[in-house]
């Protein structure tokens, strides 16, 4: 019986980890490829969740909400990159932190104006409301399986795109030598916009997918941002593989911490980070200095 409980917690940890990966991967690429620390990345998660709330009320289904939400968050990403982030590429980290912190304040204010301070629940699609029985008393919700499967599917697609397409090759090449990739005829400005917009859409989708399990509340962006930064630091800045492993480690650490070490739950995540950094100061797959 204990083992079954452990199994369920493990599934929860993996699910949380996969969700974290969608957010942290964008953060890590934007940091690694463009050299920008984007504190507002968590806001896109929050915006995704609120979009899921409004759009599923309007359309009657979370599925349609997500289908509409993806282009909306991508457009938002394009807009934010073109008008704000573009000014940060050649600036130092302090200025990046200041501007993107300002963006958090703006997004939070907009959130208050548009949606107010109350938390909202988002219904899950009817077909996903059931749960799989695991024993007489324990079961596992179908929606969480669905969530994990979608996140895993998106992670695999992301891997294949980065590893095996021309677009992915260009992103990797641009991460190591921006001038040279431009001199080969690639419009790096446009590539950056696209990468940023995709990162925003990934965080937005994570928010939309999480909405039915997390409830939608003000401040959810900051909470996830901090954990995502922990993931990026553990994995090594700019490393997608690192972000994946870091996200799973943090997902499991968080869930196990709450169950097995309730007194230390709030520091479990940081304990993992400290441990990794002691052994590998530039993260699991970091390039080192």
């Amino acid at each position: 019986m204990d083992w079954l409980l452990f199994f369920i917690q493990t599934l929860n940890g993996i699910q949380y980890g996969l969700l974290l990966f969608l957010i942290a991967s964008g953060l890590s690429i934007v940091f690694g490829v463009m050299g920008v620390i984007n504190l507002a990345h968590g806001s896109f998660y929050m915006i995704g969740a609120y979009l899921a709330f409004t759009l599923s009320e309007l359309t009657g289904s979370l599925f349609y909400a997500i289908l509409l939400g993806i282009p909306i968050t991508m457009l938002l990403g394009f807009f934010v990159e073109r008008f704000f982030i573009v000014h940060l590429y050649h600036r130092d980290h302090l200025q990046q932190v200041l501007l993107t912190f300002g963006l958090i304040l703006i997004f939070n204010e907009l959130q208050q104006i548009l949606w107010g301070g109350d938390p909202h629940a988002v219904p899950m699609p009817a077909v996903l409301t059931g749960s799989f029985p695991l024993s007489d008393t324990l079961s596992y919700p179908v929606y969480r399986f669905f969530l994990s499967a979608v996140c895993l599917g998106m992670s695999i697609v992301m891997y294949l795109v980065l590893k095996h397409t021309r677009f992915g090759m260009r992103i990797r090449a641009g991460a190591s030598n921006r001038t040279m990739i431009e001199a080969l005829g690639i419009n790096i400005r446009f590539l950056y916009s696209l990468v940023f917009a995709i990162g925003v859409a990934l965080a937005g989708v994570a928010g939309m997918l999480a909405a039915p399990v997390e409830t939608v509340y003000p401040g959810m962006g900051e909470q996830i941002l901090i954990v995502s930064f922990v993931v990026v630091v553990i994995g090594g800045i700019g490393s997608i593989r690192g972000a994946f492993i870091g996200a799973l480690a943090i997902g499991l650490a968080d869930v196990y911490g709450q169950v097995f070490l309730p007194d230390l739950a709030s520091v479990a995540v940081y304990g993992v980070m400290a441990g990794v950094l002691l052994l590998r100061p530039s993260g699991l797959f970091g390039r080192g200095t």
Partner: protein
Amino acid sequence: MSNPDIITLKDVHTYYGASHVLRGMNLRLAPRSCLSLMGRNGMGKSTTIKTIMGIAKPRHGTVTIKGYNSNRWEPYVVAKAGIAYVPEEREIFPNLTVRENLLVAARLSVEGQDNWCLERILDLFPRLSERLNQWGNNLSGGEQQMLTIGRALMTNPDVLLLDEVTEGLAPIVREEIWSVIEAVKREGIATVIVDKNIGKLMMIADHHLVIVRGEVVFSGDSIELSAQTELLHQHLGV
């Protein structure tokens, strides 16, 4: 008005911050021709090439590519116009494999042709085909140089800018690279070559410029240049 030259620089001044590097540079590159840029260290040969590429922006004067003023073109626009760049520092992508370093550059020529596919590059540089799946930074100096030239050719260019491509290589490897440059020239690709080997340049290039502190002090063909013993001695150390 049609301009027969692929690239021209007219009274071009390029700066790095406050330091004035090109001081009225003039240059003309005819289609299918080979132009050499000579001069001692720090005279502005690489800066001339970077100015053509749009990597360094001219502050005064006019750069034209195929008849268009390209002063403000970003490097990717220059590349799309058919100009390929082999930089002095090689600039291999270390986190891409050899195959990816080549494929990432692949594009059709301005006229829509694919003369230089991967197979052809590998025929030209058989050593690269043994290294296709290695990381770019695991190559010897000679292999890296072959890779940068191969990468530039993958863009199917009309013009190839070669900045000290034989520098620091073993003699046999140099020979191999020179013969590739000659093959490229026979193919009808115009080239701008910077190199320390003046003897080779005299044989290959149709026209030479000697640059001193960002200005052209001599312009002429190989016969004219070899007559300038004083100039050769003073500015090229020959």
